[in-house]
């Protein structure tokens, strides 16, 4: 049995990898059964991205939809920890730490412009 069921990568190497959008969706639960006094307080969903090249990287995270900064449109905000096949470390010799990796992945996600592509995809998917 392999000791490490994940791809280990440094933060610098991760910054050089490009991710492409795979799929996004709204959470179904909040809309499927609006009974029992439930009130949807936010529109939420998930998005999935994959890295080109080898090793293949996969990352997904949840988002929440809210008002845009200009007050006119909508904006997506990451919520919670990302899910991936990665263990990201700051230096090549650093010990693997899943909590640290999660923090580094969140930094990478929040620095990237994933919202635009995700919103476009969601509009195509649900605009019918």
């Amino acid at each position, binding site marked *: *049995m392999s000791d490490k069921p*994940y791809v280990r990568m440094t933060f610098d190497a991760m910054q050089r990898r490009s991710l492409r959008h*795979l*799929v996004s969706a709204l959470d179904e639960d909040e809309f*499927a*059964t609006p*009974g029992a006094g439930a009130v949807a307080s936010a529109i939420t969903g998930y998005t*999935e991205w994959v890295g080109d090249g080898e090793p293949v990287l996969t990352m997904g995270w949840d988002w929440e939809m809210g008002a845009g900064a200009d007050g006119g449109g909508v904006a997506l905000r990451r919520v919670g920890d990302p*899910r991936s*096949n990665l263990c990201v470390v700051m230096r090549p010799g650093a010990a693997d730490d899943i909590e640290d990796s999660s923090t580094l992945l969140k930094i990478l996600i929040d620095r990237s412009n994933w919202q635009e592509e995700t919103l476009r995809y969601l509009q195509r998917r649900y605009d019918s």
Partner: protein
Amino acid sequence: MNKIAGSSSTLSKELFERVGRYRHKVFVETLGWELTTRNGEELDQFDRPDTLYVVSQDEQGNVNGCARLLPTSQPYLLGEVFPELMNGAPVPCSDDVWELSRFAAVDFNSRTTSALSQFSSEVAVRLLQDSIAFAAEQGAKRLITVSPIGIERLLRRAGFHAHRAGPPMIIGGHPIFACWIEVRQPGA
């Protein structure tokens, strides 16, 4: 919630049939998966005499959750049907790696649970914990699962460490992926 775990021979014949019908209702009728069915039951080639099941029932005896466990040393779903989900890595083959599949926790008798989600309830968390504990009793040190990506959220909620074995693939319009689950007690 009442939990029963065992093989098809240790579960009662009547309960095993109800599990097959429950799986049909979840995976075929609700999720629209194209699966092998027989007399209104969803069963495939991996439902063998040595296959283990964890079944959840409500107070009235209605099945409201199920899971299937297979050792990877024998033929199993990921190894036979979805090896590409391992992203090029060899499929596991070991007595201490078990596969969790056909996991569902839809309570069709509850007004507050979405029939569109397998994973939304507290029943789901407890069933997952019970399934992993039962696998550990069989000697599992790690689980691999082929699942819709929503199970990652459930694993986190249940306190388990999970890692993707590779990127999700869109099959039948739904993203599914292979996921490693470390077998240890939550919070350990």
